[in-house]
């Protein structure tokens, strides 16, 4: 009963807020009335997961939200599980979702009845970077070594990554195209699993985000070969960029938050403000520099437009990778 009432109340609030669309005074009025669910579009232990959990803990520690934030992993089917879930949560003011590039790629690849345009953009926190990694026991030190080794394997080279058609597989097909290689792509549940399997010797190379390999890298168990960034990363000053080596391969991963369609504007304002404060926090700023992330804060309509531009870009990337395979 109460559930229905609050639902109606929030609808009424939403309607009145829509009337007074430009009244930011509403922002401070709305507060979550129960714990907020933070859906994560990936499995446990990967880059997206770690980051989402970091956000959650900073929010809790700095008291940026009046209610606890509960992270929930829904990584199945390259994030399709999470996308479907968010679609079903239409009008819910207590769900936000931590996204990655599979926000575009998954609905592009399979028809799961989700149009990301309908989601409410909240905030982009950072752009994550990609690095080519091999096991530290291998004889590969340079990009040339790498290309030669892949060629010599005759199509047996195992590249581990997250789901097919996701970021890692796009970067892999970029490599295949650029160097005319043939690589066997093995999909895993999450970036953490991928990193572990590289160190365990079950796959030959990965394109993990720096944060996913950093632990193994500092322990001397994995080796970066080249980065897919415009400039060198502070954490790996000796690792060249692909561009430096004469190959125009640059790819990044957005780390953003979206909310279900039809979230009340005052709730949107609440979460936007929460992430603004998060963006300004010292922990987050330190983390980005240590983990080679580019903090790049963006909100509202500008973020919505960015999503659409990126979706176009990924549509052509996907086409390229499908032709390649």
């Amino acid at each position, binding site marked *: 009963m109460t559930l229905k009432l609050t639902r109606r109340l929030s609808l009424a609030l939403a309607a009145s807020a829509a009337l007074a669309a430009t009244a930011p005074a509403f922002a401070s009025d709305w507060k979550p009335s129960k714990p907020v669910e933070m859906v994560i579009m990936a499995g*446990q232990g990967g880059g997206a997961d770690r980051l989402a959990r970091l956000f959650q803990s900073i929010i809790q520690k700095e008291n940026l939200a009046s209610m606890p934030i*509960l992270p929930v992993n829904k990584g*199945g*089917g390259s994030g399709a599980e999470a996308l479907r*879930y968010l679609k079903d949560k239409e009008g819910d003011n207590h769900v936000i979702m931590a996204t990655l590039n599979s926000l575009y790629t998954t609905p592009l690849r399979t028809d799961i009845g989700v149009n990301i345009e309908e989601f409410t953009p909240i905030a982009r926190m950072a752009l994550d970077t990609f690095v080519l990694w091999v096991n530290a026991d291998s004889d590969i030190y340079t990009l040339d070594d790498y290309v030669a080794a892949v060629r010599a394997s005759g199509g047996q080279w195992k590249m581990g990554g997250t*789901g097919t058609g996701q970021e890692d597989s796009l970067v892999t097909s970029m490599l295949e195209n650029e160097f005319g290689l043939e690589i066997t792509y093995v999909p895993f*549940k999450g970036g953490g699993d991928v990193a572990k399997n590289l160190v365990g010797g079950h*796959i030959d190379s990965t394109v993990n985000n720096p944060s996913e390999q950093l632990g193994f890298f500092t322990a001397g168990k994995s080796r970066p070969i080249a980065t897919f960034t415009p400039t060198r990363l502070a954490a790996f000053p000796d690792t060249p960029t692909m561009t430096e080596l004469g190959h125009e391969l640059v790819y990044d991963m957005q780390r953003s938050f979206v909310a279900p369609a039809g979230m009340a504007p005052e709730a949107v304002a609440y979460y936007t403000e929460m992430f603004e404060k998060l963006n300004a926090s010292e922990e987050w700023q330190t983390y980005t520099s240590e983990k080679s992330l580019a903090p790049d804060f963006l909100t509202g309509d500008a973020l919505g437009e960015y999503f659409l531009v990126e979706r176009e870009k990924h549509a052509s990337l996907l086409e390229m990778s499908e032709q390649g395979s």
Partner: protein
Amino acid sequence: MELLGYLGEGFATSLMPINILIVMIGVTAGLFIGAMPGLGSVNGVAIVLPITFIVPPSSAIILLCAIYYGAMYGGAISSILLGIPGASTAVATTFDGRPMAQQGKAGLALIAAAAASFVGGTISVVLFTLFAVPLADVALAFGPAEEFALVLLAFTTFVGLGGDDVLKTIIMICLGLVLSAVGLDLISGDPRLIFFDQPGFYSGISFLVLAIGIYGVGEILYTIETQKSAPQVTPAKITFRELWYGLKEINKLWKTMSFGSFLGFFVGMLPAAGATPAALMSYGIAKLLSKKPETFGKGAIEGVAAPETANNAASTGSLLPMLTLGIPGSPTTALLLGGMVMWGLVPGPMLFIEQPDFVWGLISSLYTANLFAVLVNLALIPLFVWALRMPFTVLCSLVFVLCLVGGFAPSQKLHDVWLIVGFGVVGYVLRKADYPMAPLVLALVLGPLMERSFRQTLIAEQGNMMAFVERPISGTFMAIAALFFVLPMLKHVKRLLRRDLSPAE
């Protein structure tokens, strides 16, 4: 020696009065959270995590581990008393815990669960203390092929067991595997088996929903039928003498419990597995090794002890990849990982070298958390058993409500509630037809893991099926699996031979 020094320092921290108080609060809270259907250690840890930022990291991790352990103990309580798994990890505990409660042995079952949890927890913590760092390499050695072989091994322990109908077991495993395929394809993301176009099926079928339906609702239907409407009170009471007798009974279960501890720790350690598969596998193996396998599922005390030792051992085991590799083995450890990142600790291979204070404080707190959890649990058993003395009509409605709430709470979808009711009816019918339920739950738990590892291996090895046999670890598992499959048949043949011979004598 160095190890003992570190551990001593750790104990100096965890035995401070304030930290002992924290442990007491944590295990008690965890016990109740775990006992509530639908709430598990994940929820407990998630709710408490923000509070931990106001106390020093060492106290914070002690509190979180205490809740984690307390919930592991608590999960067994509703499994035994009400037949509803209190947490996903306690699914296997319902198999024999519930029948024991119906026979008026609820107290004994609860004591067995508590004692088994303690043994599992303690043995695994000792293993953790001694071998954490070298064992990280074992976790690394497990690739997709090894995972597949391990899962297959788990299945074979359930097939062809003495007492059960082999064909029915295989049918139930297949049914479970089909249910596990519902949802989105693990690798391509394509939707499959979306029955009646219901969006609820996109996220798959949760095995907890299946277990609550079959064991909770199905059980109620079955009980109503067998007892008609005669008001019946389970004659459950407990005295200190019974407690003592119970503990003596437990003493006979050493073999089951030590096996369960090692198995649980080992399976928990593998990032892809966790406490639920560990408990199910331990149950299967206990049944396989038992002299009286036919008593399993009908109230065998080993059937309670085996999964309970394993799930506690696995909860310790899953801390290992989290601390040494930075990869959480369970949803709860993923939350702990989040907390550690916030405290400025970097989990991974360097943690043991760079942060010995924290690591050893944590390890020593596992010992104290375990000790207090068993004490609090044993002290509260009379209270829990007392709850069973309600008239059957009241208890029955209460259990039904708890089933629905427990199924709704994790996903907050009405879809799951309907599934529970549906599975309840199906479970009732299947039970009347004498089909075993445990293999069905096992298949749904392990199905996704099995499918993923199978497909990964074949992709990586260009479709070469021999890959599963050629690799040393997975090859060994495959051989053991084959042995487990054949062993019960040999037993059967032997029995037949003996029967043929005896009249001749």
